[in-house]
């Protein structure tokens, strides 16, 4: 076995690969099942962006909080939310992570530090400032990570939160997942500055831009700013440049994309291919070992779908429950 040139040991590398592969399979399966009409509502897929969630979440524990977006499945899986509970939630079943009352856009697991996917763009940024404030008040070294797309990076909530986090010196990392499109609108058109680093600088915090399709680039940059935040060094912004393999939502014909664009990004910017080729080339993990992971993940997703379809629907009385703790 060759010497490991990576910043992670073999077990951790396999864990990262498994997480990314799980997200990919989860999303690819939803893509197929949504087209069949099996899944109600809106679904926004994270396929293509797996390296970002995984590279960041490898640094977190259950005490660290994340606030996610409408495109939240990948964040959930990487933060350790149970895949069966997620699938059941997306199918609207009582065994779902939110007992079928949240759906794809509101999956949460507070016990894992996952404060919710969010249907309101940019809304997670103020919330994560509060999570970070709670960690700071408790002195438990917890950090908060909030994700926005390039689109929601223009929301007032996001910009206000950059300022608040800087003024209060909160342990927050603001992650801009720049996939080039705010729904259908190009980032180059909708974002007034050339670089998110400039925006971070304007709010008095460090900003870093990385290739979000490179797991190791994300992992190393995130590690440094998360460590800094944990040590009381304050907030930072991390921009991950990445690609979205599907539309804004399932059913999006994506006619705003250039001809051949999707084929090109799948061929050259697939973060899973990039990671697995590097692992194999370095001789650290064999192709057969990765394929074994693929088979396990396939079985996991298959079982999650089977279980979700077999699970009971919420009871009629669940319509009225859990509005208040007491009322």
């Amino acid at each position: 076995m060759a010497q490991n040139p990576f910043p992670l040991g073999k077990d951790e590398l396999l864990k990262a690969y498994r997480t990314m592969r799980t997200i990919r399979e989860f999303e690819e399966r939803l893509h197929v099942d949504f087209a069949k009409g099996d899944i109600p509502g809106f679904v926004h897929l994270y396929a293509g962006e797996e390296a970002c969630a995984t590279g960041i979440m490898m640094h977190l524990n259950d005490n660290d909080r994340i606030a996610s977006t409408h495109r939240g499945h990948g964040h959930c899986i990487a933060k350790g939310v149970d895949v069966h509970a997620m699938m059941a939630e997306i199918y609207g079943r009582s065994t779902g992570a939110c007992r079928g009352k949240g759906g794809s856009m509101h999956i949460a697991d507070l016990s894992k530090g996952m404060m919710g996917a969010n249907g309101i763009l940019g809304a997670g940024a103020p919330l994560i400032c509060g999570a970070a404030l709670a960690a700071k008040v408790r002195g438990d070294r917890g950090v908060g990570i909030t994700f926005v797309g390039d689109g929601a990076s223009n929301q007032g909530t996001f910009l206000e939160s950059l300022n608040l986090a800087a003024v209060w010196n909160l342990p927050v990392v603001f992650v801009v997942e720049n996939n080039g499109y705010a729904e259908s609108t190009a980032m180059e058109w909708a974002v007034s500055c050339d670089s998110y680093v400039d925006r971070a600088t304007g709010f008095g915090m460090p900003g870093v831009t990385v290739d979000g399709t490179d797991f190791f680039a994300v992992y190393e940059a995130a590690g440094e700013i998360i460590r800094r935040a944990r040590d009381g060094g304050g907030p930072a912004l991390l921009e991950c440049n990445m690609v979205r393999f599907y539309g804004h939502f399932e059913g999006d014909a994506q006619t705003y994309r250039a001809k051949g664009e999707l084929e090109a990004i799948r061929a050259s910017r697939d973060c899973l291919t990039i990671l697995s080729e590097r692992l194999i080339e370095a001789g650290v993990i064999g192709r057969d070992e990765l394929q074994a992971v693929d088979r396990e993940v396939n079985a996991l997703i298959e079982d999650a779908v089977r279980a979700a379809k077999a699970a009971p629907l919420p009871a009629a009385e669940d319509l009225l429950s859990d509005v208040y703790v007491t009322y």
Partner: protein
Amino acid sequence: MSRKISMKQAINEALDLEMRRDPTVIVMGEDIVGGTGAQGEDDAWGGVLGVTKGLYAKHGNRLMDTPLSESAYIGAAIGAAACGLRPVAELMFLDFMGVCFDQIFNQAAKFRYMFGGKAVTPVVIRGMVGAGFRAAAQHSQMLTPLFTHIPGLKVVCPSNAYDAKGLLIQSIRDNDPVIFCEHKNLYGLECEVPAESYAIPFGEANVLRDGDDVTIVSYGLTVHRAMEAATALAKDGTEAEVIDLRTLSPIDWDTIIESVERTGRLVVVDEAHPRCNLATDIAAFVGQNSFGALKAGIQMVTAPHTPVPFAPSLEDLYVPSADSIASAVRRTLSPKGARSIAA
């Protein structure tokens, strides 16, 4: 020990007592300390009208001034509540709710339901409501119906210092998000308030005056106008029962229904605008559930369907007056009461 203090002092006392009792209680808002980072005194303002004055000296950094960023810090209060603190966030004037309402009605109010009953968000958002301060259209509104409309929010609006203290203590201890509405024209009003801590349960209206001829239901400032009207009506031999709702969500339907079943007449007074407000809500509920007991058409006395005007002469016409309430009561007593239309 009981002594007379103002509603402003009562609110300050409630915050102080709860901060002493529970280390997870923090207080944040614009200028609630006042002067943070400036060269002059610490604790310079203690809130724009001095409600939190003196708390910084007692509790230090658990009181946090914020940038003027309502979305960010109200959202931060909500996020902190979801992570185990009990924040009390002051929104100064609740009119500013427009800036940050998403964090309240799409986030705080929905966490518990959306997340399948697994979230607890014990946040209190307190601020000023109401007209009469010559503060014009953006600092004077009674927006309570916006809040009562939203499942997941609790809404409180005290009419006096005693209730303000007990209801704020309950709000801080409560495990749901609470919008705590403080009528700015009641801040200086004094009444007997015990020095010790006490909580007033939500959903329990206060019957301020017994009467068998008509039921007047209100909350906040207009409770006092209703009491004035009742005193005037008593001189003519009409005994009005006056109910102070205290909490608007949950609301004490039982006390309202019990009273109307006995009096057969209902006047609802609401400082909010007339469409889809507490008055229409209560009128509809009583109409649906106690129609047989009614001897006359239900009367509603509300602010008009206009923004709050600045000119004092106009603003005085805007807020329901004791005279307009007494007139509404008389309409319910007239032979044509059942068909009358509010003047």
